[in-house]
């Protein structure tokens, strides 16, 4: 266990090389991938989120931790797929049409992955039909919409309206976030939740998934 704690530490320190090396050693030693995720990676990312909320960590530390976590996760994914292990939930995320900013979206995506979710990242400037396609073909049950600009916020509303028109709105929970977005705006456009921070988004996603 002491050796495996190096994985928590590597994620906390954003050390991708060490995270991958410890993961490889653990797998070689027969450690269950699910144990690595649930006992080490998820708690480490939760701690990263806590440190961010406490303003001890900032965006760069968060992204480096996520990068370390991903380096480890890359090694685990094939094994998880082979074993049929299910993620905490399936989330599709993107910055809405017209908006090319992706730092906030990347942060939320990384924290969701760190929280055990499977994240389908559609990138930035995403048209509504791409979200619909991800819901219909990949089984996403949570939709995360990001916008940094006031001028692109109407795209959030248009995306939610498009989900309704496509008949998939009731299949998913829609979370919105981004610098100009407010809880009031989220309510006005018919979103199910508003995440002020990446951590808040993860907490909401967990609640919606019953995790």
């Amino acid at each position, binding site marked *: 266990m002491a050796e495996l704690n190096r994985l928590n530490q590597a994620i906390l320190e*954003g050390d991708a090389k060490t995270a991958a090396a410890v993961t490889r050693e653990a797998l070689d030693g027969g450690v269950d991938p699910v144990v690595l995720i649930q006992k080490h990676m998820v708690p480490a990312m939760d701690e990263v989120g806590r440190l961010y909320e406490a303003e*001890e960590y*900032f965006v*760069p530390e968060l992204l480096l931790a996520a990068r370390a976590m991903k380096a480890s996760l890359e090694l685990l994914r094939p094994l998880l797929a082979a074993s049929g292990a299910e993620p905490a939930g399936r989330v599709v995320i993107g910055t809405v049409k017209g908006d090319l900013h992706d*730092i906030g979206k990347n942060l939320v995506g990384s924290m969701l992955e760190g929280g055990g979710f499977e994240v389908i990242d559609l990138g930035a400037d995403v048209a509504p039909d791409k979200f619909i396609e991800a819901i219909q073909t990949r089984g996403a049950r949570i939709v995360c919409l990001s916008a940094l600009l*006031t*001028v692109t916020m*109407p795209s959030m509303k248009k995306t939610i309206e498009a989900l309704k028109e496509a008949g998939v709105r009731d299949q998913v929970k829609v979370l919105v976030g981004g610098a100009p977005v407010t809880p009031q*705006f989220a309510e006005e456009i018919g979103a199910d939740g508003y995440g002020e921070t990446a951590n808040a988004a993860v907490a909401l996603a967990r609640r919606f998934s019953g995790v």
Partner: protein
Amino acid sequence: MSGVDQGLFLDLARRSLRFPIAADLTLHEQAEPETARRDATILGRVIAESAKRWGCPIGLPLMDLRLEKADLVSRLGLPAEEAERFHFAEPPPDTLPERPFPEAHAAAIGAIRWVRAHTALVPCGITIGPFSLLTRLLADPITPLALLARGGDGREDPEIEVALRARTLAMETVERSVGAQLEAGAEVIIVCEPSASTAYLSPRQMRAGGGLFEEFVLAPNRRLRDRIRAAGALLFFHNCGELTDAMVAAFGADLHPEVLSLGSSRDLAADTALAPEDVVLYGNLPTRRFYSDSAMPVEEVVRLTVDLVARMRATGHAHIPGSECDVLHVEGAAETIGVKLAAFMKAEPEA
């Protein structure tokens, strides 16, 4: 050499002027905003109309921070329309060929000439800052910076090598833009560095030393300031990102711009302790939320304005009340934004 008075902004603050940066609203009142954006004369008229509307003696331009990247991408031989999606995937060339500015950039420069020739306004240019441009040239700008802060170098990590070479091109591109705007007659240059914030530069990294903030933010902006001052123009330094006190103090005392414009996350009254007395503070009403009546009712705009004006007056520090960034047109919300800006212009503390 420009003849602008170095005390221009101190004088405006003494006269209790206030104004938002809001040319985008006027632009969207035009029949074809996107056409207007590419026409120097129409753009000049938009700037003049905005200045008249808000009683501002400066020809504040559109805050279009896409122009310099579009210019750089165009000089790489790619269509300017691809600029926003472009990122360097491998180390860029050391130099770029000279080419004419793309249409929208040329129009912005032409609008400065138009303002100078046809109005009594102080002609004003604008550019994205070199660091912020760098962050837009990389798909992931945070990782190489963090690796550099930990002592990495370009020989070990290709991401760092790309970042270092892109930095050189970013600086050259910004200098080219500023040079053309000064040549066109700009007497004030707004340098926008929103990425020089805790989103890209962690205070933990700064506390640990390593000089990333100095090397990537302060040094290039000092060079830019010196170029602007050498032309007799004034520096209006804008950063609406999340900042630490140390960052604000460095922008105030080290860069020492004529104006320091900050976002609504800052307590401007407290920041007077961080900025030299002759640095005019500009801002910082939360104008990004003016689009929403539920998030920001007009009564709240009045309350915030009155509070800001009263607190800043109490400090005695030179201050021009204004927006936290440019006030952008939001589809379907033009009227409510206009009502709130009008309320901001009038709200006064009780005598």
